[in-house]
């Protein structure tokens, strides 16, 4: 069993720079830290060949014009901004951000009535910002299914800042991963997972995505079907300096009689993700060859 690219790819994080910017961000301020993101972005853009090729390939599909260096820079820079903003949220400074929230009443309604549901997001925008606000600050009963080993260096740093980050995470990739998901959903909880990165050893579906087929995991549809719960799409788009647009929408409801097939549900997820990418191209954070059929 070989791990796919995105799991093998070590985060290109220079410990010195990370520690420096964390210190500046928390002790000097966000504007100075944000100014530092420009040279840092330039550095990563210059020294990350594979990721840059992936960024260019993605942008060529989504932008109306051939991508230029400044488009790639903006893509990297958006990613850097969301990572910096996570730091402030983890450090308890969520009030710095303005959130434009849509469709939250959908989720709140389910939680209020004890209706379990499944939330599916993507490596798009700031999942962690949303998770921190919903789970840590609002105390909503949501668990996240995640690969624990990915991005370990930056995550261990974030955990130092906010030890409660590991709360409510169910680690993926073990035979018994999903057993507790059952108990949690049956008790009326919500489970969130990301539906865009697929593993070779899991069931997956080839979906039309930004012009050609790409693999998407079947897991969100399988889980929602197994527990007969509503499947919601969520996204938190970085939309300006300290602004994020959060939205929730119903993707499929497995409580009904006429059930869609898993392929239909996953294709619909890919279609809506495509809409998000076309609307905010620089929020897509899969810096590897997403259309590579072999992974």
């Amino acid at each position: 069993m070989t791990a796919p690219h995105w799991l093998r790819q070590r985060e290109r994080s220079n410990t010195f720079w990370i520690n420096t910017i964390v210190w500046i961000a928390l002790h000097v301020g966000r504007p100075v830290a944000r100014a530092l993101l420009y040279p840092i972005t330039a550095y990563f853009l210059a020294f990350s060949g594979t990721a840059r090729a992936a960024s260019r390939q993605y942008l060529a599909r989504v932008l109306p014009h051939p991508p230029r260096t400044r488009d790639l820079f903006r893509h990297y820079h958006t990613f850097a901004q969301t990572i910096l903003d996570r730091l402030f949220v983890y450090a308890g400074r969520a009030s710095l951000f303005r959130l434009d929230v849509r469709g939250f009443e959908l989720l709140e309604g389910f939680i209020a009535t004890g209706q379990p549901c499944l939330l599916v997001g993507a490596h798009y925008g700031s999942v962690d910002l949303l998770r921190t606000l919903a789970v840590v600050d609002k105390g909503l009963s949501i668990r996240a299914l995640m690969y624990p080993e990915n991005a370990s260096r930056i995550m261990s740093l974030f955990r130092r800042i906010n030890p409660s980050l590991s709360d409510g995470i169910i680690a993926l990739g073990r035979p018994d991963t999903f057993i507790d998901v059952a108990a949690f959903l049956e008790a009326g909880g919500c489970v969130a997972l990301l539906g865009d990165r697929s593993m070779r050893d899991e069931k997956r579906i080839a979906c039309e995505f930004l012009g050609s087929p790409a693999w998407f995991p079947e897991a969100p549809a399988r889980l929602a079907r197994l527990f007969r719960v509503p499947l919601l799409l969520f996204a938190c788009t970085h939309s300006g300096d300290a602004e994020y647009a959060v939205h929730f929408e119903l993707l499929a409801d497995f409580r009904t009689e006429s059930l869609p097939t898993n392929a239909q549900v996953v294709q619909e997820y890919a279609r809506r993700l495509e809409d998000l990418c076309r609307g905010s191209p620089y929020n897509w954070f899969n810096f590897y060859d997403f259309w590579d059929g072999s992974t």
Partner: protein
Amino acid sequence: MSPLELELARLIVATLGLEVDAESIDPKAPLYGEGLGLDSIDMLELSVAIKKSYGFQIRSEDPDTVRTFASLRNLAETVEQRRIAA
């Protein structure tokens, strides 16, 4: 294959819609990954079916869970023990 192993093999085949004969499953072969080729959501479906049929919940905090799912034989042993204990 013991009667309980066969019963569980049939449960696995029926629950997951596998295209194999229950009788042909090697009781010592791994269920997860190589072997039967089940993934973690299959394991979840299986644990839900076991709860329905045998009335006990397999939980991941149980230290034996990985061992339980290692093979049909181990699964049968766990079902045997938990059934008596319940």
